[in-house]
């Protein structure tokens, strides 16, 4: 399974979609947004808030991109080929989930590093640690949603569904523009999205408070929903693979 993860990571870093959505786009957007001072508050606070938003945005891009890969693998007959090796199906799924989890690391790292090096963001060590940890672990529900779509839908449809989910959740969740500027009805929706809860955990830490219980509960709720979706889609795909 280690070999499988290695191979999948190699493929990920050579994937143009991953480089664009997972790394280049969040870093560039971060530089633009933070330097236009579109975020509320003073410039330094704005740079921190936007840094978290864009790191979350990039991590989501990586997580969904990984899910789309499954649909491509299925269309290419790669999943069937794997079934003809001694690897057990459970090892393949686990490997793919781990690839997704590891694959978001460069996205998070790229944006946080840009924050430190370009925008001179300063936070305490425990804040950095918590933010990295929360941004990282918090991608699991999105990885599962992406994988579920990858198993449930065919090649291109899965890719489009995942890009739509990725952009939709990023925008409605307030990763691009803070929800403070949303009309009331949209803000009400935003507060229930997994992407908003996900980023809120790290926004809280960055502003020096403990993550809110509400965000934790909502994100865990979505974790269950997306986990069930991925499980259902995987079982269904297994019957036709």
């Amino acid at each position: 399974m280690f070999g499988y993860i290695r191979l999948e990571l190699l493929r990920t870093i050579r994937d143009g979609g991953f480089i664009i959505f997972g790394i280049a786009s969040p870093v560039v957007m971060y530089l633009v947004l933070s330097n236009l001072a579109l975020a509320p508050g003073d410039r330094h606070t704005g740079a921190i808030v936007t840094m978290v938003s864009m790191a979350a945005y990039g991590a989501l891009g990586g997580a969904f991109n990984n899910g789309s890969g499954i649909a491509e693998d299925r269309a290419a007959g790669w999943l069937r080929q794997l079934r003809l090796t001694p690897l057990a199906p459970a090892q393949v799924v686990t490997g793919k989930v781990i690839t997704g989890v590891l694959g978001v690391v460069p996205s998070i790292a790229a944006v946080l590093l840009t924050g430190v090096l370009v925008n001179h963001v300063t936070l305490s060590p425990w804040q950095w640690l918590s933010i990295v940890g929360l941004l990282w672990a918090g991608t699991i529900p999105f990885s599962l949603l992406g994988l579920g779509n990858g198993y449930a839908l065919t090649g291109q449809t899965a890719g489009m569904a995942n890009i739509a989910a990725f952009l939709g959740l990023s925008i409605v969740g307030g990763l691009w523009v803070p929800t403070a500027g949303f009309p009331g009805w949209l803000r009400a929706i935003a507060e229930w999205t997994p992407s908003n809860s996900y980023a809120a955990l790290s926004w809280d830490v960055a502003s020096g408070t403990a993550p809110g219980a509400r965000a934790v509960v909502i994100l865990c709720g979505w974790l269950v929903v997306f986990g069930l979706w991925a499980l259902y889609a995987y079982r269904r795909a297994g019957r036709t693979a």
Partner: protein
Amino acid sequence: MEIDAVSLTAVTKSFGAVRAVDGLTLAIPRGQTVALLGPNGAGKSTTIGMLLGLIPPDSGKTAIFGIDPGQAVRQGLAGAMPQEGGLIPRVTIRELLTFIAGTYRAPLPLEQVLALALMTGLEDRRVDKLSGGQAQRVRFAMALVGDPDLIVLDEPTAALDVEARREFWNGMRTLTGRGKTVLFSTHYLDEADEQADRVVVIDRGHVVADGTSAEIKKIVALTTVSVTAVGEVAWLGDLPGVSRLEVRGDRVHLRSADPDATVMALAQAGAVRNLEVTPADLEDAFVALTAKETV
């Protein structure tokens, strides 16, 4: 009694209204090279899919070396090349094969696999930048790299040119020489004839013939005895061995199961004029076998 490498017992598989495989039984002893020969849609790929545990049969039993196919694959006892697909973009041949090899307990060394699949020197090429024939060889290499005892190949030479096909079979003989069991499907009749110890002809999900290629030719009795004859020729149809009579111009073509007896009878009747005896080739046998039930 030694356990068969492949054992299919009365397996059946339907896709909706289509009976892809219909009560097929096949046992392959260790070390045999068997060709699965049949026209498009005969059920070859479905049979292979069930044998490998990829497609669950509706009924019947499947086993590889006496155990459940999925389990056999997990133990590295079988390697296979499906009819299509299995290649992924953004990796090199070396990376791909090294990964596959790593999933087996005792794989072949990479250089040996590359040599068998005629890919030496190509190993650092990206898999998505290969020609159709090269891609086919990579897929073949994936089936071999684990050094399995049973190798199953679904139309292994479909994308290869004549030269590559010959080299491919030279490589295969190296393997069969080491006691591997090989099951391959093909439309190329000469290929089944030349490469297999045994030919299993399937059509509409049934085994319609099973034997050496010589035996199959005999079963369908396709030796043709032709003579020039004029006038009343119907009596020629009653000669020993003759199963069918066909008149084309002044030539009479007799299909015979026992050409020796037929020629003898013709001679006794003094009817030998411009005698021609054409032995069946497997292609005719195949067409005859698979067309039989259509009428």
